[in-house]
């Protein structure tokens, strides 16, 4: 077994300027908040971020938006963060809007070694612009491409020291999917428990996917 627990500062230092990051959470719920704060503190710039949303100004990924740490954003909904909308309309931040189910499947297909996603969602809409369509048994589907990233930043409820992860209620959202699709996976658990305390049936993300665990702050 390998020691994965480290400080949030050391973990964030692994992430260079310009990196591509999958960041879990839904309106900040289930996001790795201490990692986000530390990236802001360390002044990280020019990040590409893939995430469901940018939460509210001053919350979760909204903090990275506020300091303009993100140069490119792939997301589904920015309706509750006026600053992200402003940056998009002003052309200050490149924003790709993706249907939520499509974003989830694109990340999954990256992590699961598939060639892409064939979805009926978005056919005939702006979401289809520039994309291939495939007709299958008389129905038309969009071919959506896989997403992978240099890092996946995962918020979770419990981890064991080996890196098995559990999530709580609606804080699960994109986290387990993203844990499959990051070259390096950094998980920020609320608590770390001894190996063996999580039943094999209750592990959602197996430890082999997780590279680093953020230890409790002082």
């Amino acid at each position: 077994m390998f020691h994965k627990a480290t400080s949030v500062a050391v973990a964030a230092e692994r992430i260079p300027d310009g990196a591509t990051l999958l960041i879990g959470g839904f309106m900040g719920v289930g996001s790795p908040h201490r990692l986000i704060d530390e990236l802001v503190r360390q002044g990280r710039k020019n990040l590409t971020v893939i995430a469901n949303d940018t939460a509210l100004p001053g919350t979760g990924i909204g903090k990275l938006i506020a300091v303009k740490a993100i140069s490119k954003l792939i997301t589904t909904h920015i309706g509750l963060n006026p600053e992200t909308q402003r940056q998009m309309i002003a052309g200050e931040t490149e924003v790709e809007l993706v249907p939520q189910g499509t974003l989830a499947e694109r990340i999954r297909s990256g992590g699961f070694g598939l060639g892409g996603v064939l979805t009926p969602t978005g056919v005939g809409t702006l979401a289809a612009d520039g994309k291939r369509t495939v007709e299958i048994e008389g129905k038309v589907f969009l071919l959506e491409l896989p997403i992978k990233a240099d890092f996946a930043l995962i918020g979770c409820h419990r981890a064991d020291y080996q890196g098995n992860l559990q999530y709580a209620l609606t804080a699960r959202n994109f986290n387990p999917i993203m844990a499959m699709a990051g070259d390096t996976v950094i998980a920020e658990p609320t608590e770390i428990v001894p190996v063996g305390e999580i039943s094999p049936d209750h592990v959602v993300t197996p430890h082999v996917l997780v590279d680093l665990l953020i230890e409790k702050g002082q």
Partner: protein
Amino acid sequence: MDEKVLIAKRVALELQSGNLVNLGIGLPTTVARYLPAGVDVCFQSENGLIGLAPVPAKGYRNENLTDAGGGPVGALPGAAAFDSCMSFGLIRGGHLDVTVLGGLQVDELGQLANWMVPGKMVPGMGGAMDLVTGARRVIVAMTHTAKGAPKILKRCNLPLTSVRRISLVITEMAVIEPTDDGLVLREVAPGVTVEQVVAATEATLIVPANVPVMAIAVDEPETALA
């Protein structure tokens, strides 16, 4: 009665026992308050839960239990939590009986636009494109006009949410059903005339000989979710 309450009450009549229902952020969320007694539906929140319950009192809330707007919510005994792929698998795979969504525009083809006003408002589609594409029934709950300007048009001029024909539009003035033949006026609100609906609608409406008034009970108790 407030027009949004009227819309929510009328939408609530569309829900049937056993339905799995997804309510969009805003007005649609309020539909849960007006479920008729004895109607036992199950609510999904696309951020990953089946079994939403009313917001608990302060002190009983949990930061990891929220609705799709990020607001606190409750969970019934027997609720189930899952990830975003599963949530949209339920939606896209035909397992969701009804979705209720807000709308910016609906047109004569029954197509909905509800996710952006180019150059002005770019909230993003969130789950709306999947919901409109995948749910068995799609109900659009919206005000009939925007500051007097019709929202039910011959053709949407805002970006579409889906090319799929929605099931029903419910406004504070009318219930309108998109069909093969066009938009059929199914009901008018109490105190509203067919002529007033037609005048407030850009799209051509097919008006049957008999257009009943919405069966809205004015004094219904406010119960259940949210």
